[in-house]
């Protein structure tokens, strides 16, 4: 049986993709919408693309405007992450995901973080609060 992890819906949707872990918080405005690459020099994902990944990060960074605008631009160029898994979801981040219909969850089973490496193919069912390893 495939491994499953429970989580909590912030913004609905069901998507598949590879896990990409970030230990740093994310500001979606500082991701290049042309390439999906992080442009913040100090960031652990600097020059890596987040496009189509299931992006796992601790929290959002940035003002009340830039998260939604960053996500919107990534969506317009199809460089957006397929789904997002966060630990601390502030209202700015959660509202941006909801407005842009971008699947997002929090409160992931703590074992998830120990069990799964970067690149694991998963299905994230945000509506039902379930992540399945494929």
């Amino acid at each position: 049986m495939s491994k499953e992890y429970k989580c909590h819906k912030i913004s609905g949707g069901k998507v598949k993709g590879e896990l990409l872990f970030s230990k740093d918080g994310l500001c979606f405005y500082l991701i290049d919408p042309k390439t999906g690459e992080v442009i913040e020099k100090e960031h652990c994902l600097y020059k890596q693309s987040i496009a189509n990944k299931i992006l796992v990060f601790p929290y959002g960074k940035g003002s009340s405007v830039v998260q939604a605008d960053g996500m919107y631009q990534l969506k317009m160029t199809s460089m957006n992450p397929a789904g997002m898994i966060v630990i601390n979801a502030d209202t700015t981040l959660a509202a941006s995901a909801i407005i842009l219909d971008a699947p997002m969850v929090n409160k992931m089973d703590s074992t998830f973080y120990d069990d799964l490496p970067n690149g694991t193919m998963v299905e994230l069912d945000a509506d039902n609060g379930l992540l399945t390893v494929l």
Partner: protein
Amino acid sequence: MYLTDEEQKMLNGDYGEGTQLAMKILAAIGEAYDAPKMVPVSRTHVALSNQEADLWFAEKLVNGGAKCRVRPTVNPSFNLEQFQQITTIDKEDEETVKRTHAAYNKLGAIMTYNCTPYLEKNIPYFGEVISFSESSATPFVNSVYGARTNRESAQSALCSAITGVTPYYGFLLKENRAGQVLVHVEADMDDDFAYQMLGYFAPQKIGFDIPVFEGIHNPSKEALMNLGAQLNTGGNVALYHILGFTPEALTMEDAFQGKKPTKEVTITNADLKAMREEISDASGKIDFALYGCPHLTIDQISTIADLVNGKKLAVPLFIMTSSLTRSLTKKMGYMDIIRAAGGEIVEDTCMDQPCWKFLYGKKGITDSPKCAYYTKRRDMQFVIAPLKDSVLAALKGEY
């Protein structure tokens, strides 16, 4: 989540698609945070940004016939007329700024175009439940006034302006407002710039916890504006307390609501110096000076006017402020002094706007880490220095 009959009507679409969308989004946010119900808001501020997502969302609401029940004040975009005197504005950018204006005007927003509503035009009182976006505004109204708002996004605050309600969770509840980390400030907080650095650095030590600063005495309104703006840029701190100063922290007992701090940290001069070295561009020749992230107050502008009075700036100097403050600078003679030196004061404008294209690829000086952080997208480099030092640098052309 419990909804009143009126809220249910909004959700059902009885008031049109725009209001329905706004209520749908608030209900989804409420569910994400397990809010039991909505509560009325009596004040709102929307971080209008004149950017793609902002315009897309505002027009979607307009097309759905939405009107604000609690009219918000709004953040700056850029002042087209004033910038057409300074530079050439692309047709496309002119169109966007006009469309954004039209959309918000139709929604019934109060077109203040200012990011410091908490100093003029939209000042809440203690305990008032409100919905404020804008990263310098949220910490100020929560912390300095003791009003209650979550860290709203521009769009969630706009949804609250339209529906007149917000989900009941987070900082709206007293028990979620208790201090968590005790921060001993040992740095010399002797000018407003020190508060910029304290704000930008503190999140590295406190993470997501609510800080209670100890060792800060009589901060100016500019210091508090800087502290909040940077706490919420360097991190996500939308509420802080200053022991013996802010209204929910007059005593240790109040600040932590009877609990013990989860940890204690100390911040020194060395921490603030290291932070500044990390985020500031190297010193040397500069091409321009830019101030007003957040918008400068009349007192800050008078400081600049005094420094440049009767002198010639070596590089262009731009000040962003509210239209009210700009009008004061005319009446008080500061505008003439600053213009005679080669500087300019613009209203209704944010640094993160396409009107600054003529500065892209150049190196500027500013007193605000927030200004430098967001302009990474726009290929602008900044030396970050205290206000007075940076004006002196603009007179010389180097720092």
